[in-house]
């Protein structure tokens, strides 16, 4: 069953995607599946292990399930300070 998700892209992911946010309908189970979308649709090359994800403003891991209506935030490698 397909889920409607809002995906938000940050920093270099936003540049890859050419947009900061999109709403998509996808057949996915986990946050990791959503990350694959970024690669398939937008040509991102960053390794998943170096990136991070949040679901509805809560940090999550790649195995976390996504549900219909979730907002998924895709974070490229951080570099604060």
């Amino acid at each position, binding site marked *: 069953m397909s889920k409607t998700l809002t995906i938000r892209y*940050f920093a270099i992911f936003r540049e890859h995607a050419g947009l900061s946010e999109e709403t998509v309908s996808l057949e996915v189970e986990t946050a990791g599946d959503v990350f694959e979308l970024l690669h398939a649709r937008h040509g991102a090359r960053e390794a998943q292990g170096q990136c991070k994800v949040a679901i509805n403003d809560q940090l999550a891991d790649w195995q976390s399930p996504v549900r219909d209506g979730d907002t998924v935030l895709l974070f490229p490698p951080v570099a604060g300070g």
Partner: protein
Amino acid sequence: MAMLNRMSVADQAINPEEMRATLVDRAAGAYASFEGWIRDNNDGHQVQRLEYEVYAPLAISEGERIIEGAIQKYSLLHARCVHRIGLLEIGECAVWVGVTSGHRDEAFRACRYIIDEVKHRLPIWKKEFYVNGDSGWVNCERCATHARGDFASV
């Protein structure tokens, strides 16, 4: 003074004196602070300015978690951190951390702990703009080894 968040993001210049004043305590024997400044070079490139992108809701909640953890771990009196957002010029302060405690050992260790965790865990990215006109997002060199341990486990 109004209660400030212990972790905050700022779109204007950080004022270290003002931040320091929030940590004053009669029981404090030690104050340690750290600032990250924009330097004019990185990895052999001549840097002209930097742009910081911060996802504030999570930067603040994760920063609060780091600071609360440091206060417990090192028995601090007070601790705060503020991170800049937006375009910064050479010499500007990008991040400030300050702590107070009874003695200096805890103050040094906690200040170091907070800045290390902030750099690894907060959703903050920086884009460098070079003197030669190029630009690029800076990847955290150590993320490959830190991402799973620090972040995915939260």
